[in-house]
């Protein structure tokens, strides 16, 4: 490690300590932002010290869950990674993780780097970290206000991936046509994963669906079935381009509501029956993604599956909290596809639910809240008891609920998150569960309230 990097590192570490002391947040991006400004070659010079290289995880939905799963897989294999674990997924977040996990001489305890990366930041992350593995889990229309169009975004990601070392591996979701097309004719090794089951399929696409046209010839794709948004089994009737056969596949699915999903995962050389301990089909994809990445990085299959089965959710994505007489289940939903999957999962469970929906429009949530009109709230019909809408745009959420005509459910609006939490908890029967569905910054704020009450720990200590 060179002198520039070392002096920048020392300064960065002191910034990180200061932000924590002065409670400026988790110190998750500021040190890295400063380090990269002082020395643009900081990240490349740090990752060169990692003998097992780097892996990057990206995709619209499930980045944090997938990379946290993969971190426990690597942990189980005895190679605990340096990991930007708090969702700080731009270059500054990666640099900050490297600062936090190294000593003052720049020595990293970790031998491998694992970084979740924002879709738009992938080309830069590839240039700066020279990864041996890149994983793309899905591409949904999410915050187009930041990215422009999905096709353009996929094109830029593909350009970045083409620039990788020829010996690197690319793991792609076969069920997402736009993601799968990134693998067409790549020099690098491509591994596909997908769900091979029609049991929970539907023959119509949800409103939220995004990728409907053949990337090769532009013709509308024909789907045999849809699983989750635009994921499914597809084929182009014009040029014949079809879903690639997955190398790693989930078969014989049995969804167990909030308890997760039981399935068999087949992989080159074997198969295993296991329980995915997280709810919803989207988490089956996250598990397949982590499995594909773990195997590609050379971890033994038994180690991979042991880590998956014993996994507990990444902070905030799905979090159970005991709040006295009640249980609180917090599930992040930041776009229509994610929201639909939350609705579908809640709806598979018996009984009418008490729900708190919290909609913020800060930059990290996306300033544009129009996506709530693409989510299928109508699936909630007859399944809700009380709905409380909160957050900066709580009235927009209430309007969405009003126009979905949820019948008997009572609707309340309280834009202040803490007051909304208390008001909605009051309506839950003793021993019951409040389902809290926030956007990203609403989740952070609600979590801060729970931290203040001693019910959960701050995430940078977690």
């Amino acid at each position: 490690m060179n002198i520039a990097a070392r002096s920048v590192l020392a300064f960065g570490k002191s910034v990180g300590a200061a932000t924590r002391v002065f409670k400026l947040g988790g110190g998750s991006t500021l040190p890295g932002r400063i380090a990269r400004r002082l020395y643009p070659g900081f990240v490349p010079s740090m990752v060169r010290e990692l003998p097992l290289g780097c892996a990057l995880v990206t995709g619209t939905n499930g980045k944090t869950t997938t990379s946290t799963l993969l971190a426990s897989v690597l942990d189980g294999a005895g190679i605990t990674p340096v990991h930007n674990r708090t969702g700080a997924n731009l270059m500054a977040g990666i640099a900050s993780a490297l600062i936090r996990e190294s000593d003052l001489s720049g020595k990293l305890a970790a031998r491998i780097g694992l970084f979740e990366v924002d879709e738009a930041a992938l080309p830069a992350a590839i240039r700066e970290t020279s990864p041996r593995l890149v994983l793309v889990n899905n591409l949904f229309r999410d915050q187009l206000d930041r990215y422009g169009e999905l096709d353009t975004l996929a094109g830029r990601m593909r350009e970045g991936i083409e620039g990788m070392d020829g010996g690197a591996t690319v793991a792609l979701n076969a069920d997402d046509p736009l993601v799968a097309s990134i693998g067409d004719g790549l020099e690098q090794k491509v591994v596909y994963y997908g769900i091979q089951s029609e049991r929970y399929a539907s023959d119509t696409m949800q409103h939220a669906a995004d990728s409907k046209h053949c990337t090769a010839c532009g013709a509308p794709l024909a789907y045999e079935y849809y699983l989750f948004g635009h994921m499914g089994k597809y084929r182009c009737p014009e040029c014949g381009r079809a879903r690639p056969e997955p190398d790693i596949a989930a078969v014989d699915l049995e969804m167990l509501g909030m308890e997760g999903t039981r399935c068999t995962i087949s992989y080159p050389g074997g198969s295993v029956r296991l329980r995915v301990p997280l709810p919803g089909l989207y988490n089956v994809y996250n598990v397949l993604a982590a499995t594909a990445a773990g195997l590609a990085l050379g971890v033994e299959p038994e180690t991979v599956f042991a880590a998956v089965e014993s996994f507990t959710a990444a902070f905030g994505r799905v979090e159970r909290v005991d709040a006295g007489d009640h249980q609180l289940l917090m599930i992040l939903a930041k776009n229509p596809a994610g929201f639909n999957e939350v609705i579908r999962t809640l709806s598979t469970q018996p009984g009418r639910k008490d729900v708190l929906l919290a909609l913020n429009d800060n930059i990290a949530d996306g300033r544009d809240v129009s996506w709530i009109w693409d989510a299928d709230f109508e699936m909630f019909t007859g399944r809700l008891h009380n709905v409380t809408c909160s957050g900066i745009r709580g009235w927009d959420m209430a309007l969405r609920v009003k126009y979905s005509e949820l019948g008997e459910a009572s609707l309340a609006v309280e834009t202040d998150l803490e007051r909304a939490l208390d008001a909605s908890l009051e309506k839950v029967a003793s021993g019951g569960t409040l389902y809290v569905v926030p956007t990203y910054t609403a989740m952070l704020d609600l979590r801060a309230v729970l931290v203040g009450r001693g019910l959960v720990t701050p995430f940078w200590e977690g």
Partner: protein
Amino acid sequence: MNVRIGYLYPDLMNIYGDHGNVLTLVRRCRWRGIAVDVDELKPGDPVLPGRHDIFFMGGGQDREQVMVARDLIEVKGEAINREIEDGAAALVICGGYQLFGRFYRPFDGEELPGIGVFDAYTVAGRKRCIGNVVAKSALGGKAGLVVGFENHSGKTYLGQGCTPLGMVTVGCGNNAEDRTEGAVHLGAVGTYLHGSLLPKNPGVADFLIERALSRRGHLLPLRQLDDTIELRARQAAIARAKKTH
């Protein structure tokens, strides 16, 4: 009483919650006891004389927009113009709005012809206009305001043959130069505002429904609905627009 909506290219042009506009028209009719049907008008489907009272088209990505432009010119454009001259209402958003103008001129490549419902044209712009918008508008109810969210790089310029939907007080609007936002010609409304537009702007929704009913010979004023949540959401959006600009 009944109203029939022609939803143009629902599979191709439905970015940014456009579906919510159709949902709002349907609900606000049904809450007043007016029956509604929605026909999906896909590529190749003809527009039949007198069948649809309100046309709706949302925005789309570039590739979809090119496919739709071709179908509009070859199959539907003439009929849509005829229906609007004959009293039908229309709401077209973003990419749909551009295609209802005379043409779209990209930086390079061929000019994309529109169907010319609006005397307006669009040229590609270098800067993307993204953010909350507030505009003064005659269709903005008691407060005289419409609100929404814009996300476009095309710059639209209006000719003499149409009037703007409103004048922006926050945001870019049509072209970030003359403060105009959207266009109105007879019962047709074009705009860059999504959000979805109609739930938070019940005045615009009811304007379209009234046009549709009057074409069918019903001239009675629409029954007022309880718009408390609509107006609170609009106030919140206006406050947010002022704060985030």
